[in-house]
């Protein structure tokens, strides 16, 4: 269906007929200020299709100033031109004209009109595509409108891709998913088994039972261990407490004791015999020692007497030696004094000789300085003249300036001469007098005329020649002037004189320098200082000659003699001290020996008679032999006492150990009995076996529940995936239309749709999903418009062309977005008819499209 024109009469503010004509395919724009009647236009179109002519509910059609609304709508449908004409109120009528011919009236016309498109509340496409002012959002409007729009969307989508429920499984799918999820939720949460759920209880039960099993197993192990221990302990006790064993231990102990006692008694007897033998030996040894001591003492006394004799002689010799050493010492000291005196005398002579030599040196120095002074004074006198000469004449700089000026003058001369006229005389008869130019004969060689000259022509007269300016005469003049100045400064008439003067100056300068150097050499401190030195030294007295070297030699010799005397004295002193010490030691030794000899003699007198001692020794020897024999016999018969002790100890220890073990076993068994009674009374093994069975069953239950979870998870996944795939297929055509439109606004945007109401639910931009409700008003407005355009395209593709009418549908969009929306409208307008009604003339200017206007009819 394509609208072509609409004419309104007595519709709201249109009291006079107005027409909007020239509505073409593609984009049509009616831009007019508010209150012009744009929305009335949409209502009028709506009324033509959906308000019966007999209806009294005129609503927005009712004329402001009374009258009967009348609307004529021209359109094209399936190649035919239709004119729909209706009037409401008085004279209500309805007519349908096709290609200029009336084909239906009244109810028939209404039926025909109704067949053109379905009412929006019945799901007609106009509910989707005709947007009233202020109802641009997809979910705005009254209940009937919204429901109708939903039906329209669903019908459209169903016609394109099929029934939504059929594709996605509808309520059965929802129910299956819901039930499966509910069963899953009863078992699991995101983090694991649901607290309080069956699976969690199963897991907990397994854990509890496992713990209980471990505890019971440990207790059962302790019980059986205790039983095993008690069995072993009882066996040990039975062995230890066996009467036969006990009797055997006691008998062994008694036998060991008896043997030990006998061995100890024998050991006592043997010890006594050993003591007796020891006493005899001691007595014998004492006698022997006494006899030996007497002999030693006698020999000792004799030795002491001999030693005393020798010591006396040594003492006398030492005393003599000490006296001699003292005498030698005294002699050395005398010689030393003599040497010292000689040395002092030589020293004095040396001092005198040195003094005389110094005086002589002084006189010589004075003479030297006096001669130097005379020479220096002469040089000082000559310096003045030399200075004068060194200042005369040009210095090097002046000379250089002069040379430069001369050179420049020469050059200028040369140039002037080159430029100057030249005069030469050729073919002069041989006898003719010479022609003179400025007094010089003129020959065939050309001579330049750089200045006025006089040419004497014998026989003729003088020719005054004035060459005038030749070449660079100015340069020559300047050069000459400079040369004159340089000569003046140099104080010479000519450059050669100036050079000679400069040379003389240099010579004088050199002489002056040499004189000054000689003066400095003679008087380094200056003439005044030299004069002072001469005056200070003076000539000095006339002294006899002295020989310090000889005096020095004599003094050195005396010093050597004195040193030798000192050394002799030192050695003599040492010898004297040693001799006195030796004498003292010898005397003391002699005294000691005397004392000892006296003591030895006294001791010897106190010992017994030797004959008595010999007899006593014989008796003691005999007794000793007898005791030795007895002791040997006892020793041979002695039992092994350590072995007897060890046997007894072993037997005693075994007996005591057995008693101790028996007591310990009884105590241990008592404890084991108590422990076993305690553990075994609870039916541990029964409990353990039962717990293991329960644990097995609990694990099987848990495994079954986990399997159940996996089954549910797999089922939910399969259902969700199938449903999502179906939804994708369902919305694919719509999204295919929508995608390029969305990309005009956002490069990578996607829309997701709610499967229930087929409205956009989320906008995905840059991978981020945003709920439609959270978007700005402008964005929602734009999305709504694009969705409507996409639906319009789908309708058109299914063969149902319905115009898109937008009454101020972009009120919240900013300028940039409006441009993008314009682009979208243009893109869609190629296949559709779009009618844009707006009061924003300036904003829509860039929209382009066909401009419509209200045309007032007469």
């Amino acid at each position, binding site marked *: 269906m394509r609208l072509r024109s609409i004419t309104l009469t007595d519709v709201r503010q249109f009291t006079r007929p107005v027409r909007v004509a020239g509505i073409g395919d593609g984009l049509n724009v009616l831009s007019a200020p508010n209150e012009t009647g744009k929305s009335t236009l949409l209502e009028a179109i709506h009324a033509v299709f959906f308000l019966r002519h007999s209806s009294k509910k005129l609503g927005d059609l009712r004329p402001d100033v009374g009258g009967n609304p009348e609307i004529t709508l021209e359109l094209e449908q399936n190649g035919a031109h239709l004119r729909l004409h209706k009037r409401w109120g008085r004279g209500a009528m309805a007519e349908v004209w096709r290609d200029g011919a009336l084909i239906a009236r009244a109810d028939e016309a209404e039926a025909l009109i109704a067949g053109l498109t379905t009412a929006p509340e019945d799901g007609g496409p106009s509910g989707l595509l005709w947007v009233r002012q202020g109802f641009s959002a997809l979910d705005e409007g009254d209940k009937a409108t919204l429901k109708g729009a939903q039906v329209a969307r669903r019908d459209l989508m169903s016609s394109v891709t099929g029934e939504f*429920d*059929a*594709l*996605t*499984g*509808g309520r*059965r*799918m929802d*129910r*299956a998913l819901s*039930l*499966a999820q509910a069963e899953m939720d009863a078992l699991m949460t995101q983090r694991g088994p649901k607290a309080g759920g069956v699976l969690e209880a199963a897991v907990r039960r397994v854990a509890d039972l496992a713990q209980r099993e471990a505890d019971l197993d440990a207790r*059962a192990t302790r*019980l*059986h261990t205790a*039983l095993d221990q*008690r*069995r072993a302990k009882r066996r040990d006790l039975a062995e230890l407490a066996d009467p036969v064993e006990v009797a055997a231990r006691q008998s062994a102990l008694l036998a060991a004791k008896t043997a030990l006692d006998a061995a100890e008694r024998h050991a006592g007897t043997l010890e006594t015999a050993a003591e007796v033998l020891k006493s005899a030996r001691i007595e014998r040894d004492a006698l022997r020692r006494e006899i030996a001591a007497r002999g030693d003492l006698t020999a000792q006394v004799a030795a002491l007497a001999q030693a005393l004799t020798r010591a006396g002689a040594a003492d006398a010799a030492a005393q003599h030696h000490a006296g001699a050493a003292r005498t030698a010492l005294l002699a050395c000291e005398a010689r030393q004094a003599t040497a010292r005196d000689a040395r002092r005398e030589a020293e004095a002579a040396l001092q005198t000789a040195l003094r005389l030599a110094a005086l002589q040196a002084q006189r010589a120095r004075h003479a030297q300085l006096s001669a130097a002074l005379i020479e220096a004074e002469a040089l000082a006198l000559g310096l003045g003249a030399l200075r004068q000469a060194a200042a005369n004449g040009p210095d090097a700089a002046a000379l250089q300036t002069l040379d430069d000026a001369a050179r420049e003058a020469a050059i200028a001369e040369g140039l002037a001469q080159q430029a100057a006229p030249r005069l030469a005389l050729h073919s002069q008869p041989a006898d003719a007098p010479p022609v003179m130019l400025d007094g010089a004969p003129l020959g065939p060689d050309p001579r330049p005329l750089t200045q006025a000259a006089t040419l004497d022509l014998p026989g003729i007269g003088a020719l005054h020649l004035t060459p005038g300016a030749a070449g660079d005469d100015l340069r020559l003049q300047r050069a000459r002037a400079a040369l004159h100045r340089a000569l003046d400064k140099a104080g010479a008439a000519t450059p050669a004189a100036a050079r000679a003067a400069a040379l003389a100056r240099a010579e004088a300068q050199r002489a002056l320098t040499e004189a000054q150097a000689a003066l400095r050499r003679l008087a380094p401190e200056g003439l005044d200082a030299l004069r002072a030195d001469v005056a200070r030294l003076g000539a000095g007295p006339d002294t006899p000659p002295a020989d310090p070297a000889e005096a020095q030699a004599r003094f050195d010799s005396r010093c050597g003699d004195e040193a030798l005397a000192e050394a002799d004295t030192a050695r003599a002193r040492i010898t004297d001290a040693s001799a006195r010490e030796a004498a003292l030691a010898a005397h003391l030794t002699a005294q000691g020996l005397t004392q000892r000899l006296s003591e030895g003699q006294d001791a010897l007198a106190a010992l017994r008679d030797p004959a008595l001692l010999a007899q006593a020794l014989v008796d003691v020897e005999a007794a000793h032999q007898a005791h030795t024999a007895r002791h040997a016999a006892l020793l041979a018969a002695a039992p092994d006492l350590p072995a007897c002790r060890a046997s007894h100890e072993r037997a005693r220890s075994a007996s005591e150990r057995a008693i101790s073990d028996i007591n310990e076993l009884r105590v241990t068994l008592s404890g084991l009995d108590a422990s*076993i*009674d305690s*553990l*075994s*009374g*609870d*039916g*541990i*093994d*029964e*409990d*353990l*076996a*039962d*717990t*293991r*069975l*329960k*644990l*097995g*069953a609990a694990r099987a239950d848990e495994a079954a529940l986990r*399997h159940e979870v*996996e*089954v*549910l998870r*797999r*089922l939910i996944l*399969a*259902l969700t*995936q*199938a*449903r999502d*795939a*179906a939804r994708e297929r369902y919305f694919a055509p719509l999204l295919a239309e929508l995608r390029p439109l969305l990309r005009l606004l956002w490069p990578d945007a996607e829309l997701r749709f709610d499967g229930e109401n087929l409205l956009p639910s989320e906008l995905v931009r840059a991978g981020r999903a945003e709920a439609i409700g959270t978007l700005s008003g402008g964005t929602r407005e734009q999305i709504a418009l694009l969705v409507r355009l996409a639906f319009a395209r789908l309708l058109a593709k299914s063969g149902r062309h319905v115009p898109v009418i937008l009454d101020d549908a972009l009120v919240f969009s900013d300028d940039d977005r409006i441009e993008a929306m314009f682009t979208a409208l243009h893109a869609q307008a190629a296949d559709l008819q779009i009618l844009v009604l707006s009061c924003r003339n300036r904003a829509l200017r860039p929209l382009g499209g066909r401009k419509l206007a209200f045309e007032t009819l007469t």
Partner: protein
Amino acid sequence: MSDAFRLLHSADLHLGRQFGNLPEAVRFRLIEARHQILPRLARAARESGARDILLAGDTFDSETPSAAVWKQALNAMAAAADLRWWLLPGNHDSLAAEPLWEALARHAPPNLHLVVEPAPVDLAPGVVLLPAPLPRRRPGRDLTRWMAEAATPEGALRLGLAHGPVLDFAEEGSAADGTIAPDRARQAGLDYLALGDWHGAMQIDPRTAYCGTPEAEGFRHAGRGMALAVALRPGALPEVARLPLGQFHWAEVALPLVPGLDPLAAFSALLPIDAAERRDHLLRIRASGRASLAAHQALQRAAEAAAPDFAHFRLDTTALEVELAAGDLDSLDHSGALRNAAEALAAEAADPALPPETRRIAAGALTRLQALLDTGA
């Protein structure tokens, strides 16, 4: 002796067993049933004319039964004062359980005889009991060997009483632990060798028998428990009669299914016909093979319907694979997402390249989907 000497041969009472792997509701019934074994044995002995009841080991389930268990057992034995109980230590209640045997010795009623020595015991005039008590859980040797050398009065009946494996039962421990010579009765000239350890009644030879447990306690030995009434005459083979005594009937049965087989019929055929009887039945059905989705659902529903009849019932479909029938997926949905999801799960369940667990999960998801959709139907 012209009259036969009659005795009741029982063993493996396992008093004190708790059945922890079963639900609480049936556990207590099973525990109580075990305690009622003693009065039932006494009744059976009297009915069969026996005065002596031989308990060939494992009277108690553990070496440390609770005081309630052994005391109540003694009381029950004492209550049958006209009978004599002969108690042999088994591997579960060997002589290593000293506290137990000491307690039994201290508190045993006069009619209870603890045969704890491998030595002949005069059971009755002309009847000698040759017991082989277990000194510990795994003796590691044939304890009946001594019986061949045991001297008994001329013409006396020789009764052997032992506990342990004759064959490689693998009931407890290894085959090498104290295996009894299968021809011990012949070797030792026994008129009858009463054995315990195997929980099912089994005749080894005409003179050697396992009596089984008088109250079954596991699925391994299906059926009810029993005891053996034995009548002995010198020179004659013993007359052995099986006396069903157990309250509960245990059974584990297989339910092999193939597509096309009526699963419900096959299932129902495995159930006891008498519904009232089922109360004392413990039944475990292991389904295997392949079945359609509908068959899976039907089986589950049938199991859920049947379970309350039983003391304990379980249908195990772990080994039952899903085979999709022609209309199985259609029953879920003809097209759309549900159908696609079901097809994905079915493909995954049938993909041999995937691990078995993955396939099992996919099959489970598919059957669950069927169940959820049926719930909403």
